[in-house]
């Protein structure tokens, strides 16, 4: 009987030990309050017109431009095939949520412009890179999320999407 109790207590203690790191992890769980904390730009954009007051516009644009970083290699034109996957992946670019692009993808949103033939019309990959990295450096308070600023896409991943949008091989430009 004693042995039983000892082993059961031991087992419970063992399970407790296993779960300690888990509860520590749970303690770090993000909360709603943390997630609704805003950066300065988000605060400025939080008005019914979703516009930056004119007197703040220069400062706003300058700050947003400063946030743009480039890949270490300096190459902003990556691999279009990788870019294609990142573009459609809901956990990465999730670009089809708002844009149509490859005509084969029918489940595409219309908050942003249709990107079909993008590379034929736009000839400046660096602009594309910067716009994806931080749309607010071009259109303050735009509905387009700042993929690079928030780290949802790395500089290298953005470079791949740039290639997908510009490459003549890409289905977008066929």
């Amino acid at each position, binding site marked *: 009987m004693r042995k039983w109790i000892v082993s059961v207590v031991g087992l419970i203690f063992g399970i407790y030990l296993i779960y300690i790191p888990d509860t520590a992890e749970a303690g770090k769980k993000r909360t709603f309050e943390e997630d*609704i904390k805003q950066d300065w730009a*988000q605060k400025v954009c*939080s008005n019914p017109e979703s516009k930056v007051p004119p007197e703040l516009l220069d400062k706003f644009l300058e700050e947003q431009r400063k946030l743009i970083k480039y890949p270490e290699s300096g190459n902003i034109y990556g691999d279009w095939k990788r870019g294609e996957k990142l573009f459609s992946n809901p956990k990465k670019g999730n670009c089809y949520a708002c844009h149509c692009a490859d005509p084969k993808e029918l489940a595409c949103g*219309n*908050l942003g412009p249709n990107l079909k033939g993008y590379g034929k019309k736009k000839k400046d990959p660096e602009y594309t890179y910067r716009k994806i990295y931080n749309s607010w450096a071009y259109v303050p308070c735009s509905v387009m999320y700042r993929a690079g600023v928030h780290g949802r896409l790395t500089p290298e991943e953005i470079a791949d999407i740039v290639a997908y949008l510009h490459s003549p091989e890409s289905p977008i430009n066929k």
Partner: protein
Amino acid sequence: MIIRYALLALVTSGMLAVSIGEEIKDPAEEVKKQKKLLLEVMGVLPGDLIVEEGKEYFHKKGPNGKSCASCHGKDGKGEKMPLVGAYATMPKYYKDIDKVADIDLRIKSCMEKYLGYDPKKISGKAGRKVIVPLATYVASLSNGMKFNVKLDHPKEKEMFEKGKELWYARVGKMDFSCAMCHDKYGGYRIRLQTLAKPKESKVMRYWPAYRYSKDKMWTMEDRIRGCYKQIRVTRPPFYHWAHVALQMYMAVNSNGGVVEVPGFVR
């Protein structure tokens, strides 16, 4: 009951099959079609069954022997504290709990304070199983009446201001706000889903609503949590002040709208 769920499963799986091959359709027409389809197959709308379920809970005794009906009367039509028309004035400040409450929080508070439920036991999923049908039933008692939320109490005004602030706040890694999707881009599509215009449609008048795409009854708290999830912001827990605040903002914008619960939405 089993037959009901089997039928539901059948119908919803049919809907899914339809929606996979789906192209862009007029969302209002689509809702009408799905409603008609469900009525044909089941002979009754799932939301109406949930109202009945809520009615049963309303008259069921809690741990201390009291039911909702003990205070509010049979079918909520008592002489004291009747609930007919109550929903059309919510969220509202309640003296007994010294809080502004939406319908979810009001019901949960009653269950704890007057029916003797252990708060721990009803704060999670088990609680939702009872609170959602109850909310649907109680809200339906205001059907046909006009939404008329007033900001008389200072705490109500404060809640409204907090809700307005949240509505316009650009937050999280997607830089979204409620207003971006539901004011500025209301009517546009995220993928194939048309974004609702809750202010224009006086949204509070038809929630809680049955969502045919999920085969679930949702209160506005469920809906708000769903929105935050979609914009990658950690969801506020149920009964959190953010739910009350946002509903206060939407309710004031729903004033004048005629209550029609349960709603039927995608």
